[in-house]
């Protein structure tokens, strides 16, 4: 019995629906499936920032939601909050805020962050309250499951699941290696 013969691959290609940092023609694409309440994702967050800084415009980074609702009671709502902020052009600002404030993801905090980021809070509150982005988050989640995401964080480099360590050095090395010579 060998380990998975073929590494798991992204079933939903990166596209216009995604939240993307970095140029479309970057040499390498890193996709993260994450959960705002997951401590490991919280630890990965500064690592990704450091990698983005080091690789600059050679890297395209994509974040997709994989909230583990059974283990993390705030994860789904936090994911929807980031999407609601995204609808007002502030996805990444909210994404960063949520990872920096992982310990405070209750509903009232989410509203507070929306205010801090200068969003239309009434709209944010209404959309969050009525679950406007629930299907979108679900779609991310499902694309993760069908792509072989088994937990969080899970990374894909150029569409192929990265099964090795995501500590700074090994992840950076894997990204550099994925760049065609």
């Amino acid at each position, binding site marked *: *019995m060998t*380990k998975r013969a073929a590494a798991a691959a992204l079933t939903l290609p990166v596209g216009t629906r995604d939240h993307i940092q970095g140029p479309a023609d970057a040499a390498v694409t890193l996709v993260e499936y994450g959960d705002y309440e997951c401590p490991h994702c919280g630890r990965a967050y500064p690592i990704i920032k450091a990698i983005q800084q080091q690789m600059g415009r050679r890297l395209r980074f994509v974040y997709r939601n994989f909230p583990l609702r*059974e283990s993390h009671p705030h994860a789904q709502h936090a994911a929807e909050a980031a999407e609601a902020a995204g609808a007002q052009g502030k996805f990444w600002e909210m994404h960063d805020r949520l990872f920096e404030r992982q310990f405070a993801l209750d509903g009232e905090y989410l509203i507070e962050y929306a205010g801090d980021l200068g969003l239309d809070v009434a709209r944010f509150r209404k959309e969050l309250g009525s679950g406007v982005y629930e299907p979108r988050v679900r779609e991310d989640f499902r694309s993760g*499951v069908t792509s072989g995401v*088994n*937990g969080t964080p899970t990374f894909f480099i150029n569409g192929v699941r990265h099964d090795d360590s995501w500590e700074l050095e090994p992840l950076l090395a894997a990204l550099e290696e994925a760049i065609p010579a």
Partner: protein
Amino acid sequence: MADATPLAASPLPPGTEAPDFTLHSAPDQTVSLRDYRGQPVILAFYPADWSPVCGDQMALYNEVLSEFAGYGAQLFGISVDGAWCHRAFADQRKLRFPLLADFEPKGAVARRYGAYRDGDGFSERALFVIDGEGIIRWSYVSPVDVNPGADGILRALDAVAGERTPA
């Protein structure tokens, strides 16, 4: 403990009729496979309650239950642990699907599915998707320390559902 390397089990292949069984799902309750005719069934054999990888695998399935439910599929986790152990494990992990105790005679169901590790005394991390007619449509054995995920199960359920669609 013998140091003989356990032989890799060979799971029953697609096309085989799924062996029927009756196992405890709780100390005072049993489940029989035949009662689930007419809907897809997912059997997830795993080595043991409480070991970290299994926990992750079962936790993932807990999260994906609504996807399985979309296919009308019933999921069962199966290991050689007893019903009381399963109850404690399921309570602690808040699992919302039944765990079956392949406990007496130990591992008998796993053996019939070709998913038992003789030298180790527990089952492989083996997955089976069974269709509504009781035929195994997909089987997969993962290395014991690797979470097999849910992608293969969903693809198999897709294939089963596709055939049911009227022409």
